[in-house]
């Protein structure tokens, strides 16, 4: 209880909402909601009621069950894609900062190139080559996360490299890799956690966007983006088809941001100032 009270109301909300979404996603992927997700024309376009809390869609699927199933793909794909991007980007940033020289420059210019490339175009390209689906979506989002993490980590580490403890480590003959992972990484770990939370919120939006244009998760798997796309022509008849998945997406993004805020506040409280 004591640990809970240290968090603000917003932070508690963020944590709670994401936990609920994750549990819902797990329940859905274990098959407990298969009845609700099944197509049943006899119950199409029902308004929210005690039987269907969030109503049903044009194919008679229960919207609440679809949102739970969508949570599995949105969160799963978003988080996996960010972690994948971070797993490549962080070591890249660390090593290029610790090593310096031409290779370091080349790698960061490469990152700029990715930044300059329209993300949707790349996603279309990947889909054309690999075919649409969850794996392609993860890859497309991950590619754009690599330079984000590489650049963040490199920038922070370059300023750390001018500190005397790096000179001391070099006098102890520590290798570039040891300096990167043993000396630099712990000093940027907090920033990385914050960035992961922020990127995850962007990634679930990206996932929904790709699904919305049909490049993401393919039926029969549910996705919030696809739900929104399907609801497009029915807004006036069945507004709940837009309201619920839209709110779920918005609240998930908000939750990730609240968590990033919480981490960054705690991190700066705890950390002795680096620039002192």
């Amino acid at each position, binding site marked *: 209880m004591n640990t809970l009270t240290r968090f603000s109301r917003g932070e508690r909300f963020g944590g709670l909402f994401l936990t609920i979404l994750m549990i819902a996603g797990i329940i859905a992927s274990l098959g407990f909601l298969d009845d609700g997700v099944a197509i049943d024309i006899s119950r199409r376009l029902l308004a929210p009621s005690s039987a269907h809390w969030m109503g049903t869609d044009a194919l008679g699927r229960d919207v609440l069950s679809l949102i739970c199933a969508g949570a599995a793909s949105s969160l799963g794909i978003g988080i996996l894609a960010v972690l994948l991007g971070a797993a490549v980007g962080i070591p890249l940033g660390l090593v290029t900062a610790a090593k310096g020289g031409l290779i370091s420059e080349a790698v960061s210019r490469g990152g700029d190139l990715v930044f300059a490339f329209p993300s949707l175009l790349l996603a279309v390209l990947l889909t054309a080559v690999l075919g649409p689906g969850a794996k392609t979506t993860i890859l497309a989002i991950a590619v754009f996360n690599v330079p984000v993490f590489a650049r963040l980590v490199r920038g922070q580490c370059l300023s750390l490299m001018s*500190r*005397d*403890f790096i*000179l*001391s*480590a*070099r*006098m*102890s*003959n*520590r290798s570039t890799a040891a300096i990167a992972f043993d*000396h630099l990484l*712990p*000093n940027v*770990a907090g920033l990385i956690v914050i960035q992961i939370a922020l990127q995850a919120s962007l990634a679930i939006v990206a996932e929904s966007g790709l699904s919305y244009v049909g490049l993401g998760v393919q039926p029969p798997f549910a996705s919030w983006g696809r739900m929104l796309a399907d609801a497009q022509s029915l807004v006036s008849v069945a507004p709940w088809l837009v309201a619920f998945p839209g709110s779920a997406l918005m609240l998930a993004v908000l939750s990730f941001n609240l968590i990033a805020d919480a981490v960054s506040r705690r991190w700066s409280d705890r*950390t*002795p100032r*680096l620039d*002192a």
Partner: protein
Amino acid sequence: MSYRIEVESLAVEIGNQAIVTGVTFKAKSGEVIGIVGTSGSGKSMTALALTGLLPPGARVSGHIRLDHESVDTRNVSSVRGRRIGIVFQEPATALNPLMRIGDQVAESIQLHSDPSRAGSLATARRLLARVGLPEALVPADRYPHELSGGQRQRVAIAIALAASPRVLIADEPTTALDVTTQHQILALLQEIAAEDGLAVILISHDLAIIRQVSTQIIVMSGGRVVEQGLTDDVLRQPRDTVTRELFKNHVPPFAQASQAIGPAVLQAQHVGRVRHQDRTSRTILEDINLRVHAGERVGIVGESGSGKSTLVRILIGLEAPDSGVVELGGHPFDLSNAARTRRQRQLVQAVFQDPVSSLNPRHSIEKIVGEPLSLLAPVVGEAERASRIRRSLDQVGLGMIRLAARPHEFSGGQRQRIALARALVADPQLLVLDEAVSALDAVTRNEILRLILALWASRGRGFLLVSHDLSVIRSVTDRICVLAGGVIVEEGATEAVLSQPEHPYTRQLVEATPTLFPLGTSTLRKDHADPV
């Protein structure tokens, strides 16, 4: 008698805790008052109280009168800038990097007296010339980064003078500057006080600076004034223990000349370094020849820009020179020969200036101190490692600390001890002290120096001390190299060089070094130092 400023029982409270109590003094026009004390003595808080810059929540009581006119102590900020000017320690951060210096001075004038742009700019030019930056030499359209540290501090003084204040408060105005520049800035402050009829309140941790320019001295400790009076009287017969402590520690501990000097450990021959930038090349170091023998204590003195940082990195094998050779332990440094470099690294360890920057904030003390142990061959076991770390910490007087603690739990002096423990743990032959005591106050500095002398020099080990502080170099080294503009301009036995400097630069350096005693009378100096 007309007083510029009168302060009566000034006190500062933060959260019902007294931070400063009972500060009382008066200053006439043209007078310089010095407030001296170690870090945490309350001297800076006093300055902030006088300028209304205290943190929120702080309460000020007492009386302040400017030109016999009472000022509300709770609202001093209303006269700040206009009647009280301030100069801070760090000129680099006091100025706006994106604004021309003339505009920065003019902005202050527009705010207080003359709102017209042309008029204020003309006044700004005059003020800049007044503080030694005439238009012909340093045009007003320069940006701060185009100026040296001393010139930037002059701009900061011009800004403080912009509203023609009656009182100028200077809080450690020369601490970030070189010795020769410090000398000039202090002279300028004194001149401004005399010619413009200001009262100057100079705050410093350095007794010698205060002695050099102030007529009255206030010694503070623990938020209280412990001694106060005419500077000459107080320094001739310091009554309070705090003053005596400051006085005694002003001089670094004196070390006898090294006895047994062995073969050369470190040798630099014709070392040169050129920096290429924007298609121009600048010589950083030129034809440096240097030798440190086993058991010998060598000092390198040089100001910022003299190339000493680059030289240190080359000497400890972290950078390769463009020309010449550095030999360590009888073999030239060759960074491509990994096995030999590893053996050579074990011979030399360094302590750097800033203990905040030299200890990784995320590492435990155990990890920090134990890092050089990876250099030892054969690799030491866990038990041996732990006992070596303990022993090393014991030696520097930190035997009791938790090994899992992080650097931020320690004071500056303790951190420097931790850095020293790290340098000693792998048993090197040569210690490089790169401005290792420059960031510490006199009392802490002397503790660390005594420690180094007792632990190290007394066992016949040598060190290379790099510093801009002549007094430290003078008391602990046998031989000195004076570095200026990337060249060693003078070299020889420390006492001989400093008592009879031949090169004009060395002479300038010796003359600029503030001292409590007339220079040249080194017998007096040694009376006050405790020999180790």
